[in-house]
């Protein structure tokens, strides 16, 4: 029986949700506002909010100084490539762990997750040296592989959780109807797991897009993505907040828009199986 919710309680909940939402969104809002200020307005104390002479000067300077489209293209290739490559490996892996588990499946899952517990800087030098040997430094393919590897445990874990929610009986029924492994995965499992797969893909694109350790350390001029573009606007001597904000806004805009349009899938995927 559904609990009756009073109007008062409903408005209270809405208010709380709005406050939390605004708190979380505030840094992004402030960045966007700052990007339209002059450097002097950006540091003004007390801060100026909405009533100032909005200027596009910072965007003009950033456009003039940096080749934004090259950084953007690198980000798209690296984030998209690492996600696609990761899914090709993660879907079969999660399938086998969910539907034909062995005695060691739980251990393997935990071991995979444990690789995420190592600080990235701990393996920076070995990976850097391997990259030198293989000629992968400052290449998109090198970064794609590294980002795929660091996100793979999360992909497998997420997909494993979704697949576990799918009743094994349905797959059995498909098998009894004569479906092979390929048909089973393609026509039975995948359609049922679409929300889970979609949210895994989206989350990994976001993670890869925002990754700022490996992308800064393994690139120089050619393969540098938008994280390097942002880093180039921080200055040790001199004011830079307005220009940095403009660069940040340009860097997060594509992923923000993607997140905006796909929020339904993201929320559905992330809460999938939360209520039984």
């Amino acid at each position, binding site marked *: 029986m559904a609990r009756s919710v009073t109007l008062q309680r409903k408005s209270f909940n809405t208010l709380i949700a709005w406050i939390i939402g605004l708190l979380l969104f505030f840094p992004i809002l402030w960045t966007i506002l700052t990007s339209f200020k002059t*450097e*002097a307005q950006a*540091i*003004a*104390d007390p801060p100026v909010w909405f009533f100032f002479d909005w200027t596009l000067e910072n965007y003009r300077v950033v456009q003039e*100084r940096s080749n934004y489209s090259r950084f953007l293209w690198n980000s798209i290739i690296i984030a998209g490539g690492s996600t696609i490559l990761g899914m090709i490996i993660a879907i079969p892996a999660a399938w086998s762990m969910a539907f034909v588990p062995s005695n060691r499946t739980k251990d393997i899952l935990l071991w995979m997750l444990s690789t995420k517990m190592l600080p990235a800087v701990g393996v*920076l*030098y070995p990976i*850097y*040296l391997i990259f*030198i040997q293989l000629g992968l*430094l*400052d290449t998109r393919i090198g970064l794609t592989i590294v980002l795929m590897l660091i996100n793979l445990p999360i992909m497998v874990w997420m997909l494993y959780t979704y697949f576990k929610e799918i009743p094994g009986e349905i797959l059995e029924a498909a098998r009894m109807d004569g479906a092979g492994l390929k048909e089973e995965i393609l026509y039975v499992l995948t359609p049922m797991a679409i929300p889970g797969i979609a949210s895994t893909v989206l989350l990994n694109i976001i993670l890869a897009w925002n990754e700022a350790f490996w992308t*800064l*350390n393994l690139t*120089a*001029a*050619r393969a*540098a993505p938008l994280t*390097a573009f942002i*880093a*180039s*606007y*921080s*200055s*040790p*001597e*001199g*004011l*830079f907040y307005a220009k940095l904000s403009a660069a940040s806004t340009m860097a997060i805009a594509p992923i923000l828009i993607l997140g905006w349009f796909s929020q339904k899938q993201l929320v559905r995927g992330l809460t999938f199986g939360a209520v039984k």
Partner: protein
Amino acid sequence: MRLGKSLVASTALALIAASGAYAQSLTIATVNNGDMIRMQALSSEFTDATGIELEWVILEENILRQRVTQDIATSGGQFDIMTIGMYETPIWAERGWLVALDGLPDDYDKDDILPAMRAGLSFDGTMYAAPFYGESSMVMYRTDLMEAAGMDMPEEPTWDDIAAAAAAMTDRENNINGICLRGRAGWGENTAFITTVANSFGARWFDMDWNAQLDSPEWLEALTFYNDLLQSYGPPGAANNGFNENLTLFQQGRCGMWIDATVAASFVTNPNDSTVADSVGFALAPNKDGLDKRANWLWAWALAIPAGTQQEDAAMEFINWATSKAYLELVAEREGWANVPPGTRTSLYENPDYASIPFADMTLRSINAADPNNPTLEPVPYVGIQFVAIPEWAGIGTQAGQEFSAMVAGQQTPEQALARAQALVTDEMEAAGY
């Protein structure tokens, strides 16, 4: 159809191969500051003259330092030219990581480079990095506030003069702090400034046998003086203030005085950003009454060539262009003399057009007053004024800076900060085998 496809493929391959074979391209790693960005904008002149393309990697200072160190230590070969500072140059040159700049042509006129800059960027008498811009530190003060207080700032003030001026200008009701100084932890932040104060009080980091000297009475006197200045006349939250925070405060009229990099002079006198642009005066960094050592530092961002680059000649050609007299004239012609990178060449300061800029003379005097080979009153085994040019410095300088910062935040006394710093520096140095 198949023939068509293979024709397209082979043409594409040939084009890729050709572009790789003929277009010579240099990758330059640099920091984001006004002078470097200006150089990037003007570098098409270099490409037009030589046909050498340039790829720029612009990074935040700390990231840049980490990136170039890791690349040079592993012979990664990512960069053909690196922007490095006075701290790295002698250490890296000693390890054979840098190409000696012997190949510069005669008309480059090495002797024209300011002696302090050349000394700081050389190892064993050979220059390994060419200064792109140089700086020292000096006192910047509000002439209007000093006038209102009925005081005059001497051109060569002592610390007593500074303390008196800070007391006179502090006006808490109107949110004016007598003095703003670096308090944020970091070897290039508060430790750099505090080290210059310590030098001027007769203190030193190490004796000739590399024993840490932070337990000396001179260090205690210097650190107590610095702490008292900030506690009595400094802005709230000074423990978090670095260069940019103090710049902001000064530009908003919240500081009576600020002792920091000479390069700040062009920012605080720029009417577009600064509310106090027309009432800023300059003075040499202070000394302690009776001691002949001023608290000014010396720093340069310089261009160097990592050993192992495949394009040494082209890199040398670029360095010759970017740090030449002709480049300074090019900037002056395009953007005016005030925007010329300061602090590198004697001829710049002899130029009457440049000498008329309000802070030019004080910048030159500050740089000339700094001697990286004799940074302290008593002899020391190290080179460097606001740093100690040994690989361990980045670690110990930052850890000691955290103790100093905690002191400014009121969490410990100068005695406690120094005792802890002495202990950790001694441990680190012993572990490093000194």
